[in-house]
C-alpha cells in the first residue's frame, strides 16, 4: 500500500475520533412550567441540564390531562412517561419509566447529573393502555418539570 493511502487512512481515524465528541452544556437546578398539545406516543420534551447540585428529585407534574383521537377525547387514569439521559455522541438513553395519575408527580428520584428529556409512552383509560399505534395524542394544560 502506498504511503499516501496510509496517511489518508490515518487522517480518517483521527478526524473520526475528534468528531465523536460534543460540546458540554451549562448545568443547573431549576424548574420549567409548560403545557402539552397533541403529543403522539414517543414525543419528547425539551431538554434540561441537571448539575445534581441539590437533593431535589427529578419530577414531572401533568395536570388537565386528556388523550384524543379524531373527535374522541378521554380523561386517562394514568400516564406513562420515560426519563432519558443524554449519552454523547449517541443521544438519549432510557433511565426508567414511571406511571402516575394526572395531578400527581412522576418522580424519578435523583438520577444524577446530565442532560435529560422525558418521553410520552402512553396512557391508561378504562383499563386499556393507549400506547404506540393507538392514534391517541396527549394534551395537558400544565406540564411542569422540576430537577
Amino acid at each position, binding site marked *: *500500500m502506498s*504511503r499516501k*493511502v*496510509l*496517511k*489518508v*487512512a*490515518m487522517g*480518517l*481515524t*483521527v478526524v*473520526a*475520533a475528534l468528531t*465523536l*465528541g*460534543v460540546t*458540554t452544556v451549562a*448545568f443547573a*437546578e*431549576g*424548574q420549567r412550567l409548560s403545557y402539552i398539545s397533541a403529543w403522539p406516543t414517543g414525543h419528547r420534551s425539551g431538554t434540561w441540564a*441537571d*448539575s*445534581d*447540585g*441539590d*437533593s*431535589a*428529585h427529578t419530577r414531572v*407534574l401533568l*395536570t388537565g390531562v386528556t388523550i384524543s383521537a379524531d373527535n374522541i377525547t378521554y380523561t386517562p387514569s394514568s400516564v406513562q412517561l420515560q426519563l432519558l*439521559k443524554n*449519552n*454523547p*455522541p*449517541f*443521544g438519549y*438513553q*432510557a*433511565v*426508567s419509566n414511571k406511571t*402516575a*395519575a*394526572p*395531578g*400527581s*408527580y412522576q*418522580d424519578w*428520584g*435523583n*438520577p*444524577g*447529573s*446530565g442532560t435529560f428529556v422525558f418521553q410520552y409512552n402512553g396512557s391508561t383509560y378504562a383499563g386499556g393502555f393507549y400506547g404506540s399505534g393507538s392514534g391517541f395524542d396527549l394534551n395537558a394544560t*400544565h406540564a*411542569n418539570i*422540576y*430537577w
Partner: protein
Amino acid sequence: MRVRPLLTNPAPWAGVLVTLVMIYDLSINFPGYRTPATWQAALAAGGVGFQVAAPLICAAAAWSVGPIERWRIRNLLMPVRSPLTLVFASTWPLLAGAALGYGISVALIYGATKPNWGGPEQLLVLLTFAAMVFLALLTGAFVGSHLPTAIAVPVALIGGYAAVAVPLVNDSAGIARGVLGFGLPVSLYSINDQILLGALLAPVALGLAALLATYLGGALTTKVRAVLPALVLVVGILAGGFLVAGASVPPTESRPAAQLECHGASPRICLWPELGADKSIGALATTLSGRLAASGLAKPTLVTSRPGATAPGTVRWDLSGTDDQTSRTMQFAWGYQDMFACRQKPQTQRQLNDEDRAVFALAVALGADPAKIASAGSSPIFDTSTLSTVSSVYRILNLKDARDGFHEFVAWTKANRSICSN
C-alpha cells in the same frame, strides 16, 4: 523521528488515542464523575469510553494486523503459528491503552463517589468489558487480514461505530444492544438497582466465542477451518441473545432484599452494604427516628434502603451514597411522609404544594439546612427570587422556627386524610 514504523503498526499511538478518548468521553457523559456509590455502578460507568474507543480499537487492529500475506512473512521470521499470538503481538498497545483509559476512568469516579465495598459479584463487569474489548480487537484483526489496509481501516472504523451506535439509538435493537454490551455503562442510575446477570454474561459469551473462533481458525486443517469458527461464533451470538432476551432497557433490576444489612430493633435499620459500611448513616437514622418520637410523631419501625417496602411504619430511605447530612435528612423526611401520603390519588396544585411544604417543614425540624434544601428544582413552592435567606425559606414554609416544622407536618397529616379517603 521515523514515521514508517508508526504507519506500519499504528497500535502504539492509537493506544494513546484510545486512552485519551475514553477519559474525554467519561467527562462529557458523567459530569463531575459522579455515579451511584456502588462498585458495580463505578465499574460500569468507567467503561462508557469503550463506546467510542471500540471502533478505534477495531480500526487500529485492522491496520496493525494487515493483510494475511504479511502474516505469512512474520511466520517465516518468528516460529509462531497461532493467530491469537500474531494478533496480540502487534496490537497489545491497544489493549494497554484501553486498560489504562478504563483504569483512569474508574479512578476518577472512585475519587468522586468513594463507593464502599459491596461484594465480589460487583466485579463481574470487569470480565464483561474485557470480552467487549477482545471482540473489537479480533473483529478488526479479521477485517484487516482479509481486506487491503486502505479499505479495512475505514470499514472497521465505520462498521465498529455502527455496531455501537445503531443498537444504542434504536430501542427495537435491544437484543443486539444487550449482546454487544455497550448499553451497560449508562444503565445504572440508582444505588437501589443492579445490572441483570444475563446482560453481564452475554458479551462474555460472544467474546469467548470470538477468541475460540480465532484460535480454531489457525489450529484447524483447511477443510474445517472455514466452518467450525463460524459455527462457534453463531453459538456465541445465540447464547448471548438467549441471556438478554426479555431484558428491559436499561438491563437492570431492583437489588434483592437479601443484600440488605440490618441492625437495631427500634427502629430496625436495613441498608445496602455500601451504605451500612458508613456507620454515621445508620446512626443518623436512629437520631432522626428519636427526634420524630420526641416531637410526638409516630416512630418508624423499619428504615430501609429497599424500594417497594410498604409494611406499616416503614420509612423508605432513598440515599445515593454520596449525599451530605442535609440531603440524607431530606430523603428521610420524604420517606416518612410516604407513610401518610396517597401519591397515586389525583390532587390539585394547592394540595401538592401543601404536601411539599409539609415535607420540607419536617426536614427543617429534623435538622436539615433550609438554605440547602430549598432550590428552584426542589418544589414549585420555591422561587429562586425569594430564596436569598433562611428567613425567606421559613416564610414560604409558614414556620416561626425550625421546631415549628413538626406542627406544620402534623397539620398536613390531618388535612391529607381527605385526599386518601377520596
